[in-house]
């Protein structure tokens, strides 16, 4: 039971990392970056490639972070920026297209077969009679550090304040001299870098890489972001951890295990019906 909870927390941490990327992009660019899940996949392949070349874990993660950040910036500049000001439907469909594009390119380059990877075999440690794997601890610690760091960054630095301003009112922020395009690009970069960390944590839990690795965690993390209240950073963390724990708990009950995905998405629908702004979301009034 305790192990299930810890596994759930771990998975929840991964979801939270991905959900942070979703929620930041959604809050600032006002778009659902459907390709975010696939950036995780690209990060996983970057780790795989570097690891097979050098055999070192830390450089692999660094390479993954760099690759993902660049990819995030490139997709934003090439695919999303030309559509700024177009209808949200157009942007959403393009994002789906980008997601599909990344998946298919990965399939063409690496093939459809799943590849196993050995990362994070650090053994286990005992805490009060409960054995916990070190990789889980790394995941949880990393999530914690990133979340605290991100919250500080957003609330305490000038750039963070600019981000908040852009998410509040883009036009007014521009009038105040904020480089809106730059802020949006930066948001994509940060979100994608977080995705790279998420892919590292993901690979420590599930050590195999496939081209469709990112899509399910991506959608689930978006669910987590919505549950927590999209646009809210603490909301993304709470939503992610909640969803991770629920998934592991449901998987541990034999009668519920086949319906795990259904339960998670059902939760999303219920939340949206009862409280469409999510647990921590702010109410916004639409103005004409």
């Amino acid at each position, binding site marked *: 039971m305790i192990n299930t909870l810890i596994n759930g927390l771990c998975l929840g941490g991964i979801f939270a990392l991905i959900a942070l990327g979703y929620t930041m992009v959604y809050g600032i660019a006002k778009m659902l970056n459907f390709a975010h899940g696939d950036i995780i996949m690209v990060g996983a392949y970057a780790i795989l490639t570097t690891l097979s070349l050098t055999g070192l874990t830390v450089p692999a993660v660094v390479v993954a972070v760099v690759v993902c950040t660049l990819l995030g910036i490139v997709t934003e500049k090439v695919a999303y920026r030309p559509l700024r000001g177009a209808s949200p*439907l157009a942007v959403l*469909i393009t994002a789906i297209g980008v997601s599909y594009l990344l998946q298919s390119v990965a399939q063409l380059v690496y093939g459809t077969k799943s590849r196993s990877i050995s990362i994070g075999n650090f053994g286990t440690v005992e805490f009060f009679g409960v054995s916990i794997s070190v990789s889980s601890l790394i995941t949880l610690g990393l999530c914690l550090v990133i979340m605290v760091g991100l919250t500080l960054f957003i609330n305490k630095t000038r750039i963070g304040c600019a981000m908040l301003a852009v998410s509040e009112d883009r036009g007014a922020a521009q009038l105040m001299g904020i480089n809106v395009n730059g802020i949006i690009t930066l948001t994509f970069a940060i979100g994608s870098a977080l995705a790279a960390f998420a892919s590292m944590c993901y690979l420590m839990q599930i050590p195999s890489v496939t081209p469709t690795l990112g899509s399910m965690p991506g959608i689930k993390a978006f669910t987590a972001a919505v549950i927590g209240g999209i646009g809210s950073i603490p909301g993304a963390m709470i939503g992610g951890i909640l969803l991770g724990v629920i998934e592991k708990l449901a998987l541990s009950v034999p009668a519920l295990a086949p319906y795990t995905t259904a339960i998670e998405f059902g939760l999303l629908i219920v939340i949206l019906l009862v409280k469409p702004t999510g647990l921590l979301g702010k109410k916004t009034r639409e103005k004409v």
Partner: protein
Amino acid sequence: MKKPSNFKLKYIINYILVLALFIPTAIMGFTGSIKGSSALLLTQIAYSMVLAVSLNLVVGFLGELSLGHAGFMCVGAYIGCFCANYMHAVIPSKLAVLVISMLIGGISAAVFGLIIGLPCLRLKGDYLAIVTLAFGEIVRTVFMNQPVFGGALGLTTQKYGKLLYIIAFVMVLFTVFVSQNLMRSKHGRAIQSIRDNEIASRAMGVNVTYYKLIIFVISAFFAGVAGVIYGHNTTPVDYSFFSFNYSIEILVMVVLGGMGNISGSIISAAVLTFINVKLQTQLSGDLAALKQLIYALILIVMVMWNNAPALRGIREKVNIRSLIDFFTEKVLKKQETAPEGGIDPPASASWDKIPTKIPMDAILSTDITPDNPYEADAPKKEEKR
């Protein structure tokens, strides 16, 4: 001015398109010169058309993205075919079994459409897309785990042969008929006004929730019917078919054909399904990725071409309609001694073309939101009522 005959041609062109595919193949089918695999392919094309046209109602005309179309299809396929298997023993007429099972499949999908449409009253845009996606996955998981429906092995269905093929094409005609007439009516205009500017249309007295729900239910109904056709064409009904990827595939058909253009959906559904099946049977393996790559490029390029603000100038000069106008003008000038210099009515006046968003938004942005170039198009914030 455009002649009224031109208008009628636009109206019946969809039927002509469908019949042009249907009649020659039907004759070939009855004379026996058509192969079994071709009949399968044609039925596949038929249900793809039904799916594309019905998804176009939601995406193209209502302006909301539904990623759960395969989910509605799944509901229709499982429930419709399940009932058909039972009716098969009781009702001797195959035609009756097919028609009734399609009705059942369609109505059950429509009921699900109503259920999923209710959140749609509160949500829009990205949220709705995710909810429909989630719905599709839920439906698939639930049906997969029901032993009554065959579980992971799938639901075995009866074969109906050529009859299914004919019924499928009749269903295509029916779908086109309903969609087209709906969109030509007062209700259709109301629905399109919601797409162009929801707040403005609400202010004009359009019952937004009612119309959203109506369109959702109708679209789900036809997806359910398409599911029944699929189920009888492909046995066993495979739950993995109705994945998110298939919803995207239908979306690709709609986007390639043109959002809000029924003829486009028909043509692109036929072409894409044909290419898809041919590629699937002749080549395999990594080509699946190539197909996906092409789909991705279609989505990105088509959407950008049609929506990027920077391309607005080029877009208005270079499009098929202007090319057609150019040629007809030349031909007309040759025939008529005194060419008329009249101006065509604005493109938005024709019923099946996406009306440009400029007039409404220009009015709104000049009057009320003066200096917000980014969000002038549509309201982004979630609405609370």
